[in-house]
């Protein structure tokens, strides 16, 4: 009987601790998403993060931050296959301004890292802002329990796990399997192993991975978007100058806004439907508070 009482006590205590009043920093509510349009990617990024309450809302003093860029392809910024280097640079700057101790930028690319890091312009831009940029190091791969619905375990670069905060910074592109690749698909770049086998159930993998990595902030680069021949394009005519950056804490909502860049309704996307069903986020754009601004 004593043990039962003890357990009961714990249960009640736990509930009591959980229903403490929610504290809003500075007593103000932030929008769910910030959608900023304008001419300069740096400015767009800075403004989007500021609209959400500034980087200090997400990053604490002394944090080690990982910015997961898309550095997947041996393409230049104008070909819009990798995240815009100015977006990455600004995110790194913002993290340092918020007091981050260390900011890392990394991706496991499809073409050799030594080419994609250079030709995407991301390595140089991030280093200039003070970030630590390193190639994926196979010795740092570890088989991890992802506990997803489909993906139970996989090899993950520990750099993406052994960090205080993680910011997802994808680019919006077409993809012939998931239709679009944005934030949720970006997590494939944190994996090692035979990633190409995940394509057999790609949308499920994307949802399981998103649930695992839990970014504190997602910043979607929609400055140049790839409207054809994704995910690596090639010709300049595959690229559309969209001049938009979206930021938000709800990564499902960020991707949902991203689909509208391509004239697609979020409800049509399988991975978004699956994510909503799992309770990972919201895709109903009408119910979201979106701060839209043009600079």
């Amino acid at each position: 009987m004593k043990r039962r009482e003890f357990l009961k006590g714990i249960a009640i205590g736990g509930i009591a601790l959980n229903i403490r009043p929610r504290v809003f920093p500075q007593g103000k509510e932030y929008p769910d998403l910030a959608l900023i349009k304008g001419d300069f990617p740096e400015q767009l990024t800075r403004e989007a993060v500021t609209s959400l309450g500034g980087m200090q809302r997400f990053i604490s003093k002394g944090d080690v931050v990982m910015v997961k860029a898309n550095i997947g392809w041996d393409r230049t910024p104008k070909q819009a296959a990798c995240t815009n280097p100015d977006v990455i640079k600004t995110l790194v700057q913002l993290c340092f301004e918020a007091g981050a101790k260390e900011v890392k930028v990394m991706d496991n690319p499809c073409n050799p890292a030594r080419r994609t890091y250079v030709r995407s312009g991301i390595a140089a831009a991030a280093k200039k802002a003070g970030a630590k940029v390193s190639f994926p190091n196979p010795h740092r791969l570890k088989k991890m329990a992802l506990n997803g619905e489909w993906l139970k375990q996989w090899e993950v670069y520990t750099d993406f796990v052994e960090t205080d905060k993680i910011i997802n910074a994808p680019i919006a592109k077409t993809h012939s399997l998931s239709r679009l690749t944005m934030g949720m698909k970006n997590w494939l770049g944190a994996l090692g192993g035979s990633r190409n086998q995940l394509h057999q159930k790609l949308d499920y993998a994307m949802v399981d991975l998103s649930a695992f990595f839990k970014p504190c902030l997602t910043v979607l680069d929609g400055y140049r978007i790839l409207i054809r021949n994704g995910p690596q394009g090639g010709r300049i005519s595959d690229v559309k100058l969209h001049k938009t950056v979206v930021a938000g804490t709800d990564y499902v909502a960020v991707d949902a806004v991203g689909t509208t860049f391509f004239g697609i309704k979020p409800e049509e996307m399988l991975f978004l439907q699956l994510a909503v069903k799992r309770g990972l986020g919201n895709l109903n754009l009408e119910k979201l508070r979106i701060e839209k601004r043009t600079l």
Partner: protein
Amino acid sequence: MKKERSKKYKFILYIRILSQIVFFVLFFHLILSTRFPGEDYIGNVEIFFHFDPLLALATILASRMIFLSFVYAAITIVVTFFMGRIVCGWVCPLGSIHQFFSFLFKKSKLLQPKEIKENHTTWKYILLIFILAGSLFTLNLVGIFDPFSFLYRSFTAGFLPALSYSISSFIGVLYKINLSSLGDSLVQFFESIDLNAIFLQGFFIGIIFIIIVLLNISQERFWCRYVCPLGAFLGLISRGNIFKLKIDNEKCIKCGLCTIHCPTQANPFPDTEWKSSECIYCYTCSSICPTGAIGFPVKLTPESIETIDLSRRKVILTSILGVLAAPFFRISQSTRRASEKLIRPPGALPEEKFLQKCVKCSECMKVCPTNALQPALSEAGPEGIWTPVLVPKIGYCEYYCSLCSQVCPTGAIQELTVEKKIQVKIGTAWINKSRCIPWVFGDSCIVCEEHCPVSPKAIKLVKTEVKLPDGTIKTPLTPFIDTSECTGCGICENKCPVVDEPAVYVTSVGETRSEKNKLLLDISQPV
């Protein structure tokens, strides 16, 4: 007696060692620099080869094409004409390796120099004549024996990959014993020098190199003495050498040390029988002479070729052998019908011309950012051994990269700008429907299409009805090749999730360089 050794020549000897170190470091530095430099164009990392007159002569003879970069070889010729085989003793990095190991073997008493009565130094001249006679009949074998090619290939495909493997294992151990920060910095360092780690012939190329080095146990500088055709070539042209060995007969005690320790059997004693074409001006004899009797004063009389023990009979016999070699090497069908596996780097000349020019140096294999270029074994027939072949299972041709064409020292791979390179087709991809995941299981995959670098893509996805073993029908996106867009880069084969025998594969058919290895007859094109 010891005190009477020549200080002057001891000093020159040290200068010579310094020069060898400098050139070796330079050579090694250039090997390590032969990698993606962070931009589209790489500097003159192949410059060593352009100073090689034998490579120049054999390649120009075999291909009947002048290659302007070889003008530097003229410098070597002039230097050798007036100063003898100083390049062998002071510059050649392979010579330095042999000298270094001979030194080690002597110190460890594995090698005990003694006077050699019989003279086999002629073998290298015979090899040289054989190579040049072959070249005259378009058979280019110089790359197998040329010291620069030999060393470069041994380092690229043998030594460095083995080093890379051991470093990688060592780093793995560091991570296991929780020294990961040390591991991280080591990984970063070795990432920066960017070594290709997989070479199909690496084991054999490495073993040959080790054997050649171990041969120094039997004779000091075995290779330079008996084998090196470049040494032979330089020996032949060193006719005007101005520094000639002279023994001061009043000082000489006829101890014979100089001849015993001469690393190339140039026979310093007596000086009347000194073979200038064998001498590499290492100054061993003059610095070990216990009485300082040996000197190299300037003497301006030209040297006669008689110092080389080459009978007319040997010359003629070897030439005939070289001439006979050409047809012998071409019994294979490789010159008649293109091999499907023979995917050459972009910019490679048509096969016949390519074989005449390629010197098997491995520059292209070292620079390839995906490790795709591999030394051939039998794909290109016997004369094409160790020429570069793209093996998509190991690596693929990076779309915006033309580095291999830039570093080729002989123009066997024509230099291409990146803009030109992306228009070159090196082969064509094919789908093996009986192994492809969508075609067999009806599941989605699209990995090949996703990686296809051309725009519009050469792999098209089409919804197709696929029958499964139980009779049910699925309609997955299945890949189809648009052969007119395909460049044959092989990334599809490389990334295909069917690991053992990929369901999409590249063969050489359709390659731009060949007129015969074509798919469809296109007679509408103006000639």
